[in-house]
Structures are given as structure tokens and as C-alpha cells.
């Protein structure tokens, strides 16, 4: 059922990675992504790859789930490999036809690029597997909070509030969409067959009631929030406080060491 949808792809478990502060995970993901691109040779990249692999094993999320994620981006990886295969012309020519040729350099380049994309996907997936959307929202709010010093005080709070409300209403709206679809089907609406244009047209009687009811919901929610003394971010306190633990510092240390090694390897090789 649509109702049981879990958004994001949080995989409940109790691992070292799960228990890290969401801010730590987010910052480390950014660092790892940067260093995937900073790595200029296979040795440096495999260092980053080892770090990612190590954290994946630590997360205790079944590898099957990562493969499932990769399947979706497989066409992009293949496409990138093909482009790179003919683009770089260094090294010995292996195969050559028409004006195109595959060289050792281009072959190396193709696999190198594919590895980069793979690592990107795996690292980002790990964050969503091990962190709930709510924690991610809290982390974004906290990480962006320095922005309030440059006059964006309310913007950070508003963004976080919007994300919280969006997460809260996704299942409600999915349920509502299902109800409207059923109501329209009961009146003989044909949603599944016909040409693409017909099917898009058939969506209009679903989207319009959905839009109208969302506006009504928004209005009622605004009143309810006002009744609960909501007054923007001014003077607002949070019940849940994020706190760094010793594990977070260990994780930071490990990633810093690996990143430093990557820089060193880049310079030496």
C-alpha cells in the first residue's frame, strides 16, 4: 500500500554509523564527495573507496540495498564510460575504427570515471540509509544556523519548518491522492489506458481537488500553529538538542587522516 511508504530509505538498525550525530554524517559525506573529486589518480581514489567500503560495512546495512540503489544509475554509469572511452586519446591505441579509437588511456579514464560515480552514489545512499529524514532536517537546520549572523535569521528557521511540515504531510497527501483516485475511478474515470496525452489529461481531475484541499489544509494548519503560540523562529527553543559524542570525533579523525593521505598521494604521484 501507498500508505506504508517509507520516505527516504532509512534502514533501521543500531550500528556505529546509525548512532553518529546527523551533522557528523552530513559533514563527512560532503568531505568524502569533495575528496572523490580531489583524487587525481587510482591510488588516491582507492583510498577514498576503502574508506567508503569500511563505513558501509560498519553501517550494517545489507549490501543488497546498495546494489538496488546502483541499479537505477547503471545506465548513467554505462553512458559515462562510453563517452570517456572515446574522449581521451592518450596511451597506446587498442582498437580503432572510423575516426574513433580506444586507447589504454581512455580505457583507464572510463573505469576511473565509473568508479567515481559509483562511490558518489554509495556514499550518499549510506547517509539516507542510516539517518531518518527528521534527523536530516535537524542537521540541516543546525548546520545552516551560522547563516543567521549574515541577516538570514528567519530564513534558516523557515526552511527547517517547511521541511518538517513537508515530511509530516507527505503520507497524508499520498493517502488523499489515493482517495481522490478511487473516487474518480468509481465515477468511471480511466486513469490507466490511452495515449500519453490522454493519461496526462486524466490526471487533471485528480490534481485539482488535491491542490484545493492542500490549500485548505495549509490554512487550517496555519491557524492551529498560531493557536500553539507559533510566532516564527523568534525565541523558539528545541526539545531535542543535537550533541556530538566521542564516536563523532573518532569518525571525524578517521576521515581527516584519509583525506590528508589523499592530498599527499596526489602530490607524490
Amino acid at each position, binding site marked *: 500500500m501507498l500508505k506504508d511508504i517509507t520516505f527516504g530509505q532509512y534502514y533501521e538498525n543500531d550500528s556505529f554509523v546509525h548512532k553518529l550525530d546527523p551533522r557528523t554524517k552530513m559533514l563527512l559525506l560532503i568531505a568524502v564527495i569533495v575528496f572523490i573529486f580531489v583524487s587525481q589518480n587510482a591510488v588516491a581514489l582507492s583510498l577514498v573507496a576503502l574508506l567508503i567500503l569500511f563505513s558501509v560495512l560498519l553501517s550494517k546495512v545489507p549490501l543488497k540495498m546498495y546494489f538496488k540503489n546502483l541499479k537505477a544509475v547503471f545506465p548513467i554509469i554505462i553512458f559515462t564510460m562510453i563517452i570517456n572511452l572515446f574522449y581521451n586519446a592518450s596511451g597506446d591505441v587498442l582498437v580503432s575504427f572510423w575516426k574513433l579509437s580506444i586507447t589504454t588511456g581512455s580505457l583507464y579514464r572510463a573505469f576511473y570515471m565509473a568508479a567515481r560515480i559509483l562511490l558518489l552514489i554509495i556514499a550518499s545512499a549510506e547517509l539516507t540509509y542510516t539517518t531518518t529524514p527528521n534527523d536530516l532536517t535537524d542537521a540541516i537546520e543546525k548546520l545552516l544556523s551560522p547563516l543567521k549572523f549574515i541577516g538570514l535569521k528567519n530564513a534558516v528557521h523557515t526552511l527547517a519548518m517547511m521541511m518538517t511540515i513537508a*515530511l509530516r504531510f507527505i503520507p497524508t497527501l499520498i493517502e488523499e491522492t489515493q482517495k481522490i483516485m478511487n473516487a474518480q475511478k468509481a465515477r468511471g474515470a480511466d486513469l490507466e489506458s490511452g495515449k500519453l496525452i490522454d493519461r496526462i489529461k486524466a490526471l487533471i481531475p485528480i490534481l485539482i481537488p488535491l491542490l484545493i484541499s492542500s490549500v485548505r489544509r495549509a490554512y*487550517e494548519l496555519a491557524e492551529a500553529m*498560531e493557536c*500553539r503560540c*507559533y510566532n516564527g523562529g523568534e525565541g523558539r527553543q528545541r526539545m531535542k538538542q543535537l550533541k556530538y559524542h566521542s564516536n563523532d570525533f573518532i569518525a571525524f579523525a578517521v576521515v581527516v587522516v584519509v583525506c590528508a593521505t589523499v592530498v599527499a598521494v596526489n602530490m607524490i604521484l
Partner: protein
Amino acid sequence: MDNIIEVKNITFEYEDSDQKDTVLKDFSLNIKRGSFTVILGHNGSGKSTLAKLLNGLYKVTDGEILVDGISTSDEEHEIEIKRRVGLVFQNPDNQLVASIVEEDVAFGPENLGHAPDVIRAEVDEALKSVGMYEFRKSTPHRLSGGQKQRIAIAGIIAMKPDCIVLDEPTAMLDPKGRAEIISTIKKLNRENGITIVLITHFMEEAVDADRVIVMDSGKIVADSTPKDIFSNIKLLKEVGLDVPQTTELLYRLKSGGMNITTDVISIEESAQKIYDAIHLEEI
């Protein structure tokens, strides 16, 4: 007992289009501290508007509403008035803000800027008082309508209000959810001493109230005890209220010439009443 809310000769008009729509005119009402008041009325009787006026969500066009002596038009005390008079709405889905129960309940105290550990205590206490403590880590969309509405009530209780106004809190619920809400409200009134103003169009919910007010087109047409109101079925029907089946039966028996009163609601009491009446006639 003193009055927690004093409504003094208020007038309220909607001004969203060219024409002015007067909902309430020269309307007065006092709510006693610690009381359980039910306001009965059909759609369009002005009862929902009254609810939104009581905590200052809407501002009166004329007259004055005092909450503990503070006017709801007083901009300076706007937040404090909303804290003292909590408002619960009809649709539980449209009142919940966060996707985790305890975080939603924390929303009110968070806005009031309480310290994190104080909020924690307020949230736990509020959840316990509505019997939803074991669901604190759950997500609202997996709960039933009655449970969601109890969370909405907990969200108000967490702000430690003196009075809760509930605007048709059971209208969208099934009978089970309705019973849950009514017993929660009664408990809050008796055990926590919170003043309750319950706005509804279900007569049954007024049985245990201290006072029942019947409203029709912006006016109070009756204001008395539940027993008194329920014996006046003709009036209730005139203002378009749904009368419970048992009361309806008693009413018809009465108008058919049986010597019977219509001031009970429960099936058992009604059965006893009919039995007694038949018995009496036989003698």
C-alpha cells in the same frame, strides 16, 4: 468560582468581500473557572467563530473578551492568551506539525521558549494525561483518528493552559474515537481542573456537562443544565440539532400521550424509564 472568560457584548463581522457578514451581534457569555461547558449548535450558528474569538485568533469587531481579565484584543498579550486558552480543531490531521508524536507535542512549549529539559517533562506529562505516552515515538499517520486527536489535545496541554476550547473535536471520528476523546476531556476537567468549552452538534456529548448552551444564528437560545435542555426536545429540533435515537423515542412516546420525561440519554436509562412508565399506566 470566578469567571475565566468573560465575553462582553461582542459583535463580530467577516469582512472578506464587499458585503459585511455579521456572525455574532451583542453577544455575551461568561465561563466559570474549572467548569465543563458544552455549546450545542447547528452549522452556521456561529459556534466555531466564537471558539476562534475566545483565544484571540479572530479579533472582535466591537465589544470585548476578557481572559483572566486580559483583553484578547491586547496585542502585547497575544501569545499569553493563546497559551491560557488552547484551541483544538475538528480535523486532527491539519493540526499536527511534526512527523514524530513527541516532537509534535513539543511544538507549543518550544514556541514558548522553555528550556529543553522542561519541554521534555511537559511533553511526557501531556502524553500521559491523554493516555498516549507509549506512542511517543510513533508517527501520526499510523495512528487512528481518535489517537491523532488525543495527540492534538496533548499538544495543547503541554502548554499548561487554564482552559481548552474544542471546536467539534469528534466530528471526523468514528464512534470509538469519539468515546476516547469525550472521556479524555472529562478526565482533564475533573483530574487536572482544566476549564473545558466543548463545541459540538452531538447532544450525547453534553450529558456530563455542568452547563449546556444552545446557539442558533449567532444567539444563545438556551442556557441551562443538561437535564433541563434535554427535556426541551422541541427547541433542540427547532434549531436543527440531531437528537439521539433514545431521546427521539422518548419524545415520540411523550407526544403520543405517555407520561414520560425526555431528560435521559443512555439506552439503559431510557429502557428503565419506558418500563416504569408502562408499569405506572398499568397500575
